[in-house]
């Protein structure tokens, strides 16, 4: 295998009413290039994660390339998934041996449509989508099952929210029992970009590359009734394959409080600092938040504050898909 490292990361998130997706993305791409002194002409492979359903516009992923500049033609690909999966594709592409650098980016404007309706469309189209179950209600079913099985309480969920910087209000009503406002992610717009580089090229570009020593992703049954929602077998297998033991810092993509507990059970993060960035409970730009977790974790290696870190991304309802990327300093 070729050694691939994250050498630069940049991101922006917030709620945006003026700029479109390209205008959100462009300064992020420029910033990530500036960090390593590269231009688009130095990039071997470009891969993005976006969703046309968020923009409500077919081929919005093609427009997004305006932020990079795709002439003369570039080697490029796209996944209709969180940018973390675009990073996985870029890592695979760099294993081919002919290219040494990759740009990975993600952009999403969750606030343009009704996100809860948009996300109902990722379900089984015959028997589930016609009922329009929103993702908060599905997460609440999972949370209820988790509390019943483990004996944990709503206070345990509130403790997660508190440690991620959310203002906890136990007197507030349920959004969907047992989840209250502080258990749920904010609806956020955002963009993120990562530069990957191979071997000596990575060492040229930055002082402390975050070397990817393991990366793996797994998927579970689409049908929610066909799996045990109280645990995450896919996160466990991905973490084992990626070699997750002994990390100093873990950035978990857990949009809901109970999902952080399920992921901690699955990955087994003894003693690791979890989500110093605040994670998806602080900002959850769809398509972007998973790539942000990898970028935030990598940043702890890039700035010399950690030796081994883990970035996790999830996709689909109730933690259906999980990706684990383990990075280290060398």
């Amino acid at each position: 295998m070729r050694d691939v490292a994250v050498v630069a990361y940049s991101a922006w998130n917030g709620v945006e009413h003026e700029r479109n997706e390209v205008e959100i993305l462009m300064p992020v791409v420029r910033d990530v290039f500036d960090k390593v002194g590269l231009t688009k002409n130095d990039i071997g492979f470009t891969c993005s994660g976006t969703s046309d359903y968020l923009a409500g516009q077919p081929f919005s992923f093609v427009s997004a390339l305006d932020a990079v500049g795709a002439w003369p033609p570039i080697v490029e690909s796209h996944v209709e998934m969180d940018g973390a999966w675009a990073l996985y594709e870029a890592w695979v592409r760099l294993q081919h041996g002919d290219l040494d650098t990759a740009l990975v980016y993600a952009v999403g404007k969750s606030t343009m449509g009704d996100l809860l309706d948009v996300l109902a469309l990722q379900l089984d189209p015959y028997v589930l989508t016609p009922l329009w179950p929103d993702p908060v209600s599905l997460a609440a079913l999972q949370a209820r099952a988790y509390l019943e099985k483990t004996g944990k309480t709503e206070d345990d969920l509130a403790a997660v929210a508190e440690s991620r910087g959310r203002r906890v209000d136990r007197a507030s009503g349920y959004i969907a029992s047992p989840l209250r406002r502080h258990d749920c992610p904010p609806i956020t717009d955002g963009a993120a970009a990562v530069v990957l580089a191979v071997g000596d090229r990575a060492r040229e570009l930055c002082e402390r590359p975050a070397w990817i020593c393991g990366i793996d992703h797994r998927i579970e049954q689409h049908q929610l009734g066909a799996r045990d929602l109280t645990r995450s077998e896919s996160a466990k297998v991905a973490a084992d394959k990626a070699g997750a033991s002994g990390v100093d810092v873990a950035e978990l993509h857990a949009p809901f409080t109970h999902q952080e507990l399920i992921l901690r059970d699955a990955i087994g993060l003894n003693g690791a600092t979890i989500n110093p960035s605040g994670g998806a409970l602080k900002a959850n730009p769809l398509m972007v938040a998973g790539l942000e977790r990898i970028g935030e974790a990598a940043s702890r290696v890039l700035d010399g504050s950690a030796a081994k870190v883990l970035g996790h991304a999830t996709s689909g309802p109730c933690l259906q898909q999980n990706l684990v990327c383990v990075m280290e300093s060398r």
Partner: protein
Amino acid sequence: MSEDVTGIVVPIHLDYTYTPGVAASRFLRHIAEGNYVGQRCPKCKKVYVPPRGSCPTCGVPTDEEVELKQTGTITAFCIVNIPFAGQAVECPYVSATIQLDGADIGFYHLIQEIPYDQIHIGMRVEAVWKPREEWGTTTESIAHFKPTDA
């Protein structure tokens, strides 16, 4: 015996609050004032109209605004004879790509005031605006393009 289920109908409707973006919003506000304003790329100097805020070739922001003349050249056209759902104009009509003088990219508009069999690529055209009270933040402020008199 029960009948086979061979299909189901699942109505889907999504609402969006569309944001054209900063660059396109500026363009549309200029249109409401009767001006066609594009943006120039600081690197390759190409002028885009309508602007999208970035140069798709260079990948850099296009901040400089350029007011364009309202004359241009047809670079492609199509006579539309087939009605379709949501069609805004009555058939037959001509949709054309017009490259305004001073711009480096074409945009779509209607060609009228000429028999359709006389339209050709390279024909010089000019904008025909609607009455001033009908101008708004839309390219429909221009009724159509017609051949220049010259």
